């Protein structure tokens, strides 16, 4: 097949790509949604223990991380807008900023978890076993949900790093950028999940 005829048969279905991404995101919404349902039931069952557990958490770090992720959501939108205008260098710079903010989130989260570990609060810790049953469940949900979310941040950073390289190699360009749009959708969902985790654990427990 000649190069000319190959070019005539290039298959592009941007809407299909985006629909597929959204279907995946729906499974993610339901994954975390199930945990939100579990949290709601346990909070209803052990309100006092959840209140004590929430008081142990550092709300300042939680709010700081919220601002960090909200800003990273803005920068990833700006990266997509830049590539759609053909500004490759700007798009890569915005993606670098997003990745940097994602790493900042993880560093803050590491400090937060380290402080908890230092106080004997980690899964299966002897000190945790001495706490009331509801508080044990609170910290179980806290480590599960923030841990799973942190894993998603790590995956998001990896995906966006690959995409920054793809912009560099021309695989993502002004007229072929649905891959970056889908990467951005994933990053926004990670942000939305944290939007719910902040009040659940840090502000309204």
């Amino acid at each position, binding site marked *: 097949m000649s190069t000319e005829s190959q070019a005539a048969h290039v*298959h*592009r*279905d*941007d*809407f*299909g790509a*985006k*629909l597929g991404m*959204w*279907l995946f995101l*729906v499974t993610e*919404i*339901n994954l975390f*949604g*199930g945990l*939100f*349902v579990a949290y*709601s*039931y346990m909070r*209803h069952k052990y309100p006092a223990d959840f*209140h004590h557990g929430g008081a142990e958490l550092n*709300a300042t770090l939680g*709010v700081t991380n*919220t*601002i960090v992720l*909200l*800003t990273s*959501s*803005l920068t990833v*939108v*700006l990266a997509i*807008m830049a590539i*759609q205008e053909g500004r490759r260098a700007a798009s890569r710079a915005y993606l670098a900023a997003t990745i940097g903010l994602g790493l900042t989130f993880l560093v803050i989260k590491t400090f937060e978890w380290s402080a908890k570990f230092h106080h004997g609060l980690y899964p299966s810790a002897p000190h945790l076993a001495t706490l009331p049953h509801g508080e044990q469940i609170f910290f179980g949900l806290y480590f599960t949900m923030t841990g799973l979310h942190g894993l998603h941040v790590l995956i998001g950073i990896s995906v966006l790093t690959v995409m920054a390289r793809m912009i560099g190699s021309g695989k993502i360009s002004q*007229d072929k950028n*649905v891959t970056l*749009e889908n990467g*951005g*959708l994933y990053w*926004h*969902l990670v*942000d*939305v999940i944290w*939007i*719910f985790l*902040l*009040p*659940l654990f840090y*502000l*309204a427990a």
Partner: protein
Amino acid sequence: MSDQSTHPTEHAPLHPSYGTVVAVWIALVVLTGCLVLLSHFGLRAAVWGLLTITPLKAGLVFYFFMHLRYEDPLLKGVILVAIVTLLIFLVLLFSDVAFA
């Protein structure tokens, strides 16, 4: 193959302006501030903040940052079904708890 797949740029959706996305980001930060402020007025106020401001923040991200405002009704329907399903789970759970 549809026209959409052969000429993707002709059917490119509208996108928000720079002003809009920055305004949405400012709104998100301000709403986060409101949420923090409410939490200082006691648990009841904090829970009301969780039930009202948090879905509003998520809605802004979905609608503007995730472009749902500019997308096909099919995509909007997919998200709506997922969210309604979750809400049904929550309603069923709390109706069960309330009458247990």
